[in-house]
Structure formats: structure tokens, C-alpha cells
């Protein structure tokens, strides 16, 4: 008996080492790496996975763009914390009256990191490399975003060393926003010629940071470009470490080995906010999450039914209780960080009484049964199963019985994005992450009847003639004020028609050590370090 007691005690003691110790953080947040190497200022960033390429033209994921985009500049860039545009490598630009010709006047005396000059030829090279299959360096990569970014481009003309003209096939107002995207980065033509396919591991641009090395699976290291044309950055070195496991990444931050991480789980976020040992920097991203109705099928072709469901779902509870503040309640399909967002439209409040009344008016006093498709997981889908269960419970209260069907993401997309004649869908979940910060990239692509699958992503098969007219016109109008008005009106009609349950905009959340100063999030998800400092 005594032996067993002794044994039990020993086991308990071993386990206390792991769990018991103390609840206070062992390392105080100031012993981070950032001043380690000989007084140099260093920021260590924890990425979710290894970057796949540092070639701006080949990037299609956040981990790569976060590690790579400080190496490059574009002709125009997004302003801090918004998707409005400002000059970058171009001093100014003209758009012809018919919206078909864009002339960019380039800044002079800028050099790439390899010492070669930045000029109009480099701009032409950077675009043609991606879109011209006969270009001698087209085979140096796979350009996933070339079609999206330069689809409207007819040709690029070098007028003189510092003037470049881009001709479009047809007027396309969002084009200027495309020129601020990562695929529109200007790369060093000499470096592409020298490294060929390996340019993605030897990137050369004009940006605030230069590439130093990439130890696969370990880290990507950049150092500051002292000759940066907008001024020398304050931080000497940036290190990006891929740490796939969420808990490990957080532990490394808490131990002070990382300065900045993304994506903590909702529960950890609550704890970190309460602790107050770190900065929690958050902003609604270019994202929207919704549940689409099949507006071409009974009973969802009845506006009152769609509105009733919207009243029946407690959206605020989902955002607060399930997402725990990792999303921002939406009032429109367009995120507030994108210009053209209409702050005056209202989302449907939680009102089951009103929902029942509307269902009765629509001829369904006892509700009905419907199928609700959801994916297991998927980019931007947040927590599909838990959110679906909450919606299912809310709708049960007004007599609508939802049968949830779960599919793997790839097969899910194949099932959702088919023409309406082939689709027996009732309701399903979907989300969208914006590309170029233009309202067209949300509203036209997701809600114009010209964009019914497979042409586009209008997965509710929504059709409203006035909305179609507004969205099509806004695409070819250059005047931004007029476009804003059109988008604002379209949002009013869309929210009234209720083709979706519009739920939330997922926030980008960065947890940083307290001594990191001036770090601002950008809606496009890239990290900007040129104005960041370490105290």
C-alpha cells in the first residue's frame, strides 16, 4: 500500500513540472531577439507555413507575400490601412478620356538591389514576362495572378526611359487598383535573366528590404536597403520563420523568441487580450462570409422568405460567442476597409417574431425543410460547422428545419459553382477574400447576374436589373465619386433583396511584442515594415 502511494506521488510530481509551475509568463516580453545581433534592430515574424516563392509575380498565398513584398515596389500603391491609391514608383499618371490608355511617368534615379537602373523597360519586362507566352522569360514561373491582374491589358509601350503606356482592350475602371497588386511589382530584368526559374529564390526588386538568404524550413532573412528611395528603414533585419503549429507559434512569442505572429485561436486571443503583455493589432480584412440562398428556386425565390431567415439568425451572437471577436459584424457585402462601402445600410437585426410574421405572409406559416451545404474547412470559411449549427438552431425556432451536409473543400467548390440548371442547392456557406481592394472585386463578381457560375462567383444566382445596371456602369466609369454613388445604391438594394445572410468580415489579427512601434495592418494582408521601429 505504502509503495503504491509513493509511486503515485512520484508520478504526480513529474507532471507538476509541466503543468503546475506558475501562471505568470516566464520571460518578460522585453527579452525578445530584436536587439540581439550586435545592437542591430531585428524583427522576427512567425509565419503559418513556409513561403512557396519570393517572386512577386508567382505569389498566391499570404505566407509568401508577407515574406516577399517588402523586397518590391509597384507603380502605384495602397495607402496605409486603406485601399485608396497613392504614387509609388510612378510619380504621376494619366488616364485617357475613353479609359483605354494609362500613361505612367516614372520616378528617376532609382536602382534595383543588384545595382541595375529602374526604368520603363523594366516595367514592360515585368508585365510581359507574365502575360506574353512568347516572351523569352515567360517560362521562368507560373503566374497565378497574371490573368486577374493584366487580363484587360492589350499591350505595353515604352515611350521613353521614364514614361510607359499601357493600352487596355476595353475600359476597365478597377485597372489602376490592379497596378498596386503583388503581380504588378517591378522586378529586376537582369536578375530574372541571370537566375531564370531560380529567381523565386533570388529575388531582386527596388523595395525597402533586400533578400539575404532562405534556409528551407528554417527562415527567410531580409536586410534593409540603405538606399531606399523613400528613406532608409529603421529596422536592420527582418526574419520570417515558418511555424505551422498554432500553439508552438504562440509559445515562441510568449517566450520572447518571436516579435510578431498572426492567427491565434479565438480562445487564445481572449486570454492574450486579458493578459495585456502584448499588443493586439486588429482590423477587418478584405473578407466577407455569407450564406447564399438559391434565389432561383422555391421557396428562396421569395424575398420575404429570405428576409425572414435573415431576421431569424442571431448574427451578433455568432460573431461574439463563436468567433469571439475574430470577425467584425457586417452591414453590407463590402468590407468597411474597401472604399465605396456604404455605412448607412443596415443588416437585419435578430427578430424571430418578425421572421415568423414574414414566413406567414410568404405562405409558410409552419416553416419548411431545407438542405444546408457546408465545407469541412476552406480558406476564409472560419468555423463552418459551428456556425452552421448555430444557424440551424436559430432557424429551428421559427419552424425551418435545416439538414446540414458537409463536404470536402475541393468537391464543395465543384458542387457550388455550377450553372443554376445543374444545381439543386437550397442554401450554402461561402466566403470571399478580395484581391485588389476595388468594390468591383466584391460586388460585381459576387452579385451581378453576368457573373452566374461558371462565368463568375454569383453563387446565389442573384439577379436584379437595377443592381446589374449600376455594377456594369461602375466598371467603365473612371470618376471615382460617381462610382462610389453607384456602389452605395447597389448595396442598399442588395441588402433589401437579401440574397445572402451576410455575416461578418474576418479580422486580421497580429500579436506583437510591446516594443514594436508603428506597425499597421493593411487590408491586403501584406506586412509593411518601412516605417516600423523597435524601441
Amino acid at each position: 500500500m505504502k509503495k503504491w502511494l509513493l509511486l503515485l506521488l512520484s508520478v504526480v510530481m513529474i507532471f507538476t513540472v509541466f503543468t503546475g509551475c506558475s501562471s505568470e509568463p516566464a520571460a518578460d516580453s522585453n527579452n525578445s531577439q530584436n536587439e540581439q545581433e550586435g545592437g542591430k534592430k531585428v524583427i522576427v515574424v512567425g509565419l503559418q507555413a513556409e513561403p512557396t516563392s519570393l517572386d512577386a509575380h508567382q505569389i498566391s498565398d499570404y505566407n509568401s507575400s508577407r515574406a516577399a513584398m517588402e523586397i518590391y515596389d509597384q507603380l502605384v500603391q495602397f495607402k496605409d490601412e486603406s485601399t485608396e491609391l497613392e504614387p509609388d514608383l510612378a510619380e504621376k499618371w494619366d488616364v485617357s478620356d475613353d479609359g483605354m490608355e494609362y500613361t505612367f511617368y516614372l520616378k528617376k534615379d532609382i536602382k534595383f538591389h543588384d545595382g541595375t537602373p529602374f526604368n520603363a523597360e523594366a516595367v514592360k519586362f515585368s508585365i510581359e514576362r507574365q502575360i506574353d507566352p512568347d516572351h523569352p522569360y515567360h517560362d521562368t514561373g507560373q503566374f497565378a495572378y497574371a490573368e486577374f491582374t493584366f487580363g484587360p491589358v492589350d499591350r505595353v509601350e515604352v515611350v521613353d526611359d521614364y514614361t510607359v503606356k499601357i493600352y487596355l482592350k476595353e475600359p476597365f475602371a478597377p485597372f489602376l487598383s490592379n497596378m498596386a497588386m503583388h503581380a504588378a511589382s517591378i522586378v529586376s530584368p537582369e536578375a530574372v535573366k541571370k537566375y531564370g526559374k531560380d529567381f523565386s529564390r533570388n529575388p531582386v526588386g527596388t523595395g525597402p528590404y533586400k533578400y539575404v538568404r532562405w534556409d528551407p524550413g528554417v527562415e527567410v532573412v531580409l536586410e534593409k536597403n540603405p538606399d531606399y528611395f523613400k528613406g532608409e528603414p529603421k529596422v536592420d533585419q527582418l526574419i520570417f520563420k515558418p511555424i505551422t503549429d498554432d500553439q508552438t507559434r504562440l509559445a515562441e512569442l510568449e517566450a520572447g523568441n518571436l516579435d510578431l505572429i498572426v492567427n491565434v485561436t479565438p480562445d487564445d486571443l481572449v486570454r492574450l487580450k486579458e493578459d495585456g503583455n502584448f499588443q493586439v493589432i486588429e482590423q477587418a480584412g478584405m473578407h466577407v462570409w455569407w450564406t447564399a440562398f438559391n434565389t432561383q428556386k422555391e421557396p428562396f425565390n421569395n424575398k420575404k422568405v429570405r428576409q425572414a431567415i435573415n431576421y431569424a439568425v442571431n448574427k451578433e451572437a455568432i460573431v461574439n460567442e463563436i468567433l469571439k471577436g475574430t470577425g467584425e459584424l457586417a452591414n453590407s457585402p463590402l468590407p468597411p476597409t474597401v472604399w465605396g462601402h456604404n455605412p448607412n445600410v443596415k443588416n437585419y437585426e435578430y427578430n424571430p417574431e418578425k421572421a415568423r410574421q414574414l414566413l406567414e405572409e410568404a405562405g409558410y406559416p409552419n416553416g419548411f425543410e431545407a438542405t444546408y451545404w457546408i465545407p469541412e474547412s476552406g480558406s476564409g470559411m472560419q468555423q463552418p460547422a459551428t456556425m452552421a449549427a448555430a444557424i440551424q438552431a436559430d432557424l429551428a425556432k421559427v419552424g425551418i428545419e435545416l439538414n446540414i451536409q458537409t463536404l470536402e473543400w475541393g468537391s464543395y467548390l465543384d458542387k457550388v459553382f455550377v450553372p443554376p440548371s445543374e444545381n439543386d442547392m437550397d442554401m450554402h456557406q461561402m466566403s470571399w477574400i478580395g484581391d485588389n481592394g476595388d468594390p468591383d472585386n466584391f460586388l460585381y463578381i459576387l452579385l451581378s447576374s453576368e457573373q452566374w457560375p461558371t462565368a463568375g462567383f454569383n453563387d446565389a444566382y442573384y439577379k436584379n436589373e437595377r443592381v446589374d445596371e449600376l455594377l456594369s456602369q461602375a466598371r467603365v466609369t473612371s470618376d471615382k465619386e460617381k462610382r462610389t454613388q453607384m456602389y452605395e445604391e447597389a448595396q442598399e438594394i442588395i441588402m433589401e433583396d437579401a440574397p445572402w445572410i451576410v455575416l461578418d468580415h474576418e479580422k486580421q489579427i497580429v500579436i506583437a511584442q510591446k516594443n514594436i512601434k508603428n506597425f499597421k495592418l493593411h487590408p491586403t494582408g501584406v506586412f509593411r515594415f518601412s516605417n516600423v521601429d523597435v524601441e
Partner: protein
Amino acid sequence: MAGYILRRLVALIPVLLGVTILVFSIMHLSPGDPAKIILGPKATEESLQQLRTELGLNLPVHEQYLRWIGNVFKGDWGRSIQLKMEVLPLILDRFGATLILTAASIFLAAFFGILFGVIAAARKYTFVDRFLMLIILIGFCMPVFWLGILLQIGFGLKLDWLPISGMYPPGERGAGELLKHLILPAISLSMGSGAIIARMTRSSMLEVLDHDYIRTAYAKGIRERKVVFKHALKNAFIPVITVLGMQIGFLLAGAVLVEIVFSWPGIGTLMINGILARDFPLVQGIILFVATTYVVINLLVDIIYAFLDPRISYE
């Protein structure tokens, strides 16, 4: 002996072919169109079609397989879709890290497994035996990723004795730094195998310790340590070697989870990211590589038997 080795080497070919067919089918039967996963849901039908042609995805599956296996024999393992690099150099580059981790774990598992097994057997049915067996049971039952997280929180975060994750390539910051990063992942990985080896050693030793020659050895006045570790252990070793050989393969595969938890830059992390991105040339390459390593190690273990036990002969 030479004839035996040659026969075994020839027998490897159908085994490896079977593995390649299996892996290839799994990758191509798994749901989701690789082209769509690579280019994202926003890609146009034209660019999807172009990519499918480029990757040979439009060909019938058996033709794709023949094309791939033909190239593998020529030394061309294809190009990773996601990382845009040649697969074989990529694997070899990362395999070093996995090898370091696996070797350290095998060492730990074998050393402590055999030591604990022998002690437990020599002190059978006592408190020491029961205590060791309990520890071993816990080690065996604990999932590696869970143990890994506990070790990280305990020794990395709370006590701040050892690094939580990561690794520096040997040579970059010296062997000391590498060793410090290696300790926690190696312990996590070795726990399960160490437990199996310990139990195997214990039961094998118990059997041997009952033999007459052991009693004779004691009767001759030889010290207990010598009897147990020299006379008994040598004969208890054969089944232990079998288990050890099998555990090497298990550890190579099990390293995947530990590598993820500890951000260890080996082929495990490479493979997981490859699977998520449907990077089939990379995943096929890694599995073929690991399978080859596994069967070669098994062969080596069989050969080692003959040296350890003169009664075993392969002629």
C-alpha cells in the same frame, strides 16, 4: 550470404513498385482537382486547362503513372508544384534534418529502452519493476504531439531551459545550438518506441534469465552486473533487434508529427505542406523515398542478425 543479399535486393523491386502504385492512386483519387487547388477558386477555365496540360493531368491515370515512374528511373523525380524546385534535391536537402532527429530518437529509445528493460527484468516483480513499467506505459500511451506540447510548455516556456522549436542547420551556429534544439523533439519522438523496446527487452530477458547457464554463471560467483549485461543480454538481443529495426521505420514516419509541433525543418513538414497543397510530385517523391529507406533498413537488420547470432544462416 552474397546470394541472399542479391535475392533480397531483387525482391525490393516489386515491393517498391507496389508502393509507388499505391501512393500514386491515393494522390490521384483524393478529392479535389489539383489544378484548382494550385491556382485557387478564382482561376479561369483557360489557365486551369493550361496547367492541367502542363502537369499532364489531362492524360489517363495509367499513362500519367508510367510517365512518372519512367522519369523516376531516369533520376528525374519531377518538380514540386508549390515550391517550384526539383523534388529529389529538395528531399535530400531536408532529409538531413529528419535523419538527425530520427537518429537521436533511436539512440534514446534504444539506450533507455534496453536499460530500463534489463533493470526491470533483473528486479522482476519489485517496486522498481512496477515503477519502470508504469513510466513505460505512460510513455507508450501518450500521443507524441501531446507530449511535445507538454515538453514545450514545461522546459521551453516555464523553465526556459531549452528552445521551444526550430533548428539551425549544423555548422551555422555550432553543434551545441543544434543539440539544444534537438533534445525536446528527440525525447517526444523516442518515447513510444523506447517503451516498446523496454517491454520487449524485459520479456526477452525474463526468459533468458531462467536458463540454466545463468544459474551456472551465478554459481561460478560472477558478479550480477556481468551476468545480466554480458551473459543474459547477448542472448536476449535477437528479438530486441527485430523490434528496433521496425521502430526505425516507425520513427521515420512518426517524425512527421513531431516535426510539425517543433517546426523541425525535415521531410515531415515538407510532406504535410505538400499534401495540403496537393503537390503530388513532391508527396509521391517523399513517400517513395521513405519507403525505400524503410525496406533498405529492414534488409540491413536481417543481415545484422547473421553477425549477432551464428545460428542464423541465410544460405
